[in-house]
């Protein structure tokens, strides 16, 4: 016989909220209810599932170490039910409350009947709840190249004639061809080329394609996001992009493909940015960023994709500002690379990110060269500030003359940080060692990155100290009613999702990446590469990535919430506002971080 209060509570508790009425009633009728007073000890060896109904219960290990606290909706005893093994944990009542005991039979029966229930408890058990999804994500708005590109490849050889090309294009009804030699992409040819490079110059019909094709065309990976193609096309003013799959060409993406599939895509903003001719125009564009963020969130774009998109917009603004600066200041007196650090470099920028940038110069920043880049940096950084990307309070910006250096200058600076890891240097490491080129010379940047990675991979002392720094901050134990439970048992009010979660993961992934000389800067890409290179196991990598996604998603949702309320965007989460699955997932994400930190310590802090 079911009691309404019991059934209602089950119906509101993850994962039982997925059971139908009859199954809920059946489960509710198999429950025993026990009342506990503070200091009472709960009998945990009774082979039943424990579900906290009210009150607070504290779990201690057999060494009397505080493991966690349980509150309404939390479980215990599933470990024993799943494995048959008992442990010597103690569950003490801290604040008077009720516990529901679910009989083992009823627990197992509902597990067999409801696959998702089983998955929930298996994941809860393996501390992998952050990998549990209540339902499949609905359709994604963020398309990838592979979603829109035509699944056919129309290619021609370079020694064939332009007439052959014209014939093939007519037959296949396409406006461009891939030019391939021994299955390798060597160029592209478009119908515009036939007009402007053949007909206009009165070249004969038997002219070889190799004579007039565009060599070494820009290309894009088929797994890239579509907006990245938009970005490239806008930036280089091109309409055709060969698509690569694992380095091999598999098709052509045209501007028409994009327009057809993406007519209302918000990321047209990027195209708009590249058309602006003044800083004021860019400022007007940037006013749409918040709107865009709201649209992305409505479309359920996952946080990491949203971060990627927001970064791409900052990149576009930067690139356009550099272009406008050069319009005003004239050509640069030497080759340069505009660098971004921190979250922009990692491509996980959030809405409240500030600027972290610098200049890498081919020549020493003296005299004319120095003056030019000082003016360029002024223009770009203040332009970015005008576009709402606030100036860096720590003055990590290209406007700072300390951060406009030649390759030799930067190389020397990194070498010093690596050789003598002072606390100040290590603090800087978390920002400066994540770097990416936004505009200018890639070659110059690659030389610097190569130099840095060669040094870091050979510097155990640096890695040791970097690890120590990464371990200084830890994740809390869990979230609890209206406070955060710290590892020392203390309670805190708010949770900074960045400082106590996201950054911990980026920090520890960075140590691995620097130790293995990995070029990738994005945390997800670093994790993938670390697995490919055999540095960490794919399970650890997956755990970290999922935990990262959970945290990033919560932060993204928090920012959306702040925007909708007209508040300032912050990373501070009020635990009272979070419930059910998210709370379980956060707790597991913290556990993943704790484990990963101890493995990091094992790896880099032992031999010294």
């Amino acid at each position: 016989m079911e009691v309404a209060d019991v059934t209602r509570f089950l119906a509101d508790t993850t994962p039982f909220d997925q059971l139908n009425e009859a199954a809920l009633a059946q489960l509710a009728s198999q429950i025993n209810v026990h009342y506990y007073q503070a200091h009472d000890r709960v009998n945990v060896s009774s082979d039943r599932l424990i579900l906290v109904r009210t009150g607070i219960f504290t779990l201690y290990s057999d060494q009397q170490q505080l493991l966690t606290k349980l509150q309404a909706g939390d479980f215990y005893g599933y470990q024993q039910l799943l494995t048959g093994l008992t442990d010597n944990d103690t569950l003490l009542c801290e604040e008077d409350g009720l516990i529901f005991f679910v009989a083992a039979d009823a627990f197992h029966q509902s597990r067999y009947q409801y696959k998702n229930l089983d998955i929930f408890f298996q994941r809860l058990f393996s501390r992998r709840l952050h990998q549990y999804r209540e339902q499949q994500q609905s359709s994604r708005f963020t398309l990838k190249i592979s979603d829109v590109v035509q699944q056919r490849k129309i290619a021609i050889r370079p020694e064939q004639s332009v007439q052959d090309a014209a014939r093939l294009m007519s037959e296949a009804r396409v406006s461009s061809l891939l030019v391939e030699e021994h299955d390798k992409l060597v160029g592209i040819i478009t119908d515009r080329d036939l007009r402007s490079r053949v007909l206009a110059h009165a070249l004969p019909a038997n002219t070889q394609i190799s004579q007039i094709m565009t060599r070494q065309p820009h290309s894009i990976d088929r797994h890239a996001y579509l907006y990245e193609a938009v970005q490239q096309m806008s930036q280089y003013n091109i309409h055709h992009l060969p698509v690569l799959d694992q380095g091999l060409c598999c098709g052509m993406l045209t501007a028409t493909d994009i327009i057809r599939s993406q007519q209302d895509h918000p990321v047209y903003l990027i195209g708009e940015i590249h058309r602006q001719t003044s800083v004021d125009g860019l400022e007007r564009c940037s006013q749409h960023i918040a709107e865009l963020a709201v649209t992305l969130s409505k479309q359920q774009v996952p946080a990491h994709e949203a971060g990627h998109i927001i970064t791409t917009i900052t990149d576009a603004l930067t690139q356009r500002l550099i272009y406008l600066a050069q319009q005003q200041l004239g050509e640069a007196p030497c080759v340069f690379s505009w660098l971004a650090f921190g979250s922009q470099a990692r491509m996980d920028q959030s809405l409240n990110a500030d600027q972290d940038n610098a200049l890498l110069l081919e020549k020493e920043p003296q005299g004319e060269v120095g003056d030019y880049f000082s003016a360029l940096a002024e223009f770009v950084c203040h332009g970015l500030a005008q576009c709402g990307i606030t100036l860096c309070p720590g003055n990590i910006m290209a406007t700072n003359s300390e951060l406009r250096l030649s390759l030799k200058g930067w190389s020397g600076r990194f070498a010093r940080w690596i050789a003598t890891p002072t606390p100040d240097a290590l603090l800087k490491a978390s920002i400066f060692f994540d770097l990416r080129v936004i505009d200018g010379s890639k070659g110059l940047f690659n030389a610097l990155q190569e130099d840095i990675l060669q040094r870091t991979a050979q510097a155990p002392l640096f890695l040791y100290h970097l690890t120590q720094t990464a371990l200084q901050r830890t994740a809390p134990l869990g979230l609890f009613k209206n406070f955060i439970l710290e590892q020392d048992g203390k309670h805190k009010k708010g949770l900074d999702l960045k400082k106590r979660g996201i950054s911990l993961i980026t920090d520890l992934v960075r140590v691995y990446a620097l130790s293995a000389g990995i070029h990738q800067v994005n945390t997800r890409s670093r994790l993938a590469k670390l697995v490919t290179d055999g540095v960490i196991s794919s399970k650890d990598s997956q755990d970290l990535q999922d935990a990262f996604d959970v945290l990033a998603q919560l932060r993204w949702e928090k920012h959306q919430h702040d925007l909708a309320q007209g508040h300032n965007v912050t990373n501070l989460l009020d635990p009272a506002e979070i419930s059910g699955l998210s709370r379980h997932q956060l707790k597991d994400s913290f556990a993943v971080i704790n484990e990963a930190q101890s493995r990091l310590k094992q790896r880099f802090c032992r031999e010294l």
Partner: protein
Amino acid sequence: MLNWLAAKRRPIHQAVGYFSATPFPSANMAAKDARFLVLDFELTGLNPRKDHIVSIGWVPVHQHEIVLADARHYLINSPVSVGQSAVYHGLHDHQLKDAHELADVLTELLSRYAGYVFVAHHSQLDEQFLRAACLRCFGKTPRFKFIDTMQIEWQRLLRQGKVVKHDALKLPSCLKRHGLPAMANHHALEDAYSTALLLLSQLKPGGAEMTLADLYLLSR
């Protein structure tokens, strides 16, 4: 005719007889070891001589645990219309169509829960109605042992030196005071469950030494 009556009544008398013959636990027994049955009735009125039981709900408590698997709720066929009391308990005549015979439900109660100490909130009323019902069905009623969560609460508040206000002893107020989940509106099983929660909470401060005798004393 008389033979038929006798045949019909023999097993029922057996239930009363069995209940009466089963001893109650010793008054010295620790309260935590006793078996309780928490009861609640929905009634057509407050006069046991004129009014009737409309529904019965009960939950057993073993070793300080409410056993929901043995919780029961029965709608009772009433010899008269539910009338005005429907306003309170939400039961209407048409809902009573697939209701049970009072005698059947009492037979189950007496045969399953012989030896149990019964518990109710304001138990005096429930006890009067239970006795009246047994008399009406079986011509005889056993003696019951009741403890009263309302009386216990009253004593508790008095001992704390509190002024007991008019509504303070009603079940919802008691639940609130004990930090227990609020209850659904009048329904015999929901009320019995809530009363059982209140009992568990009230048993706590007494600790392991509290005996049934203590509880009887508090219930007076």
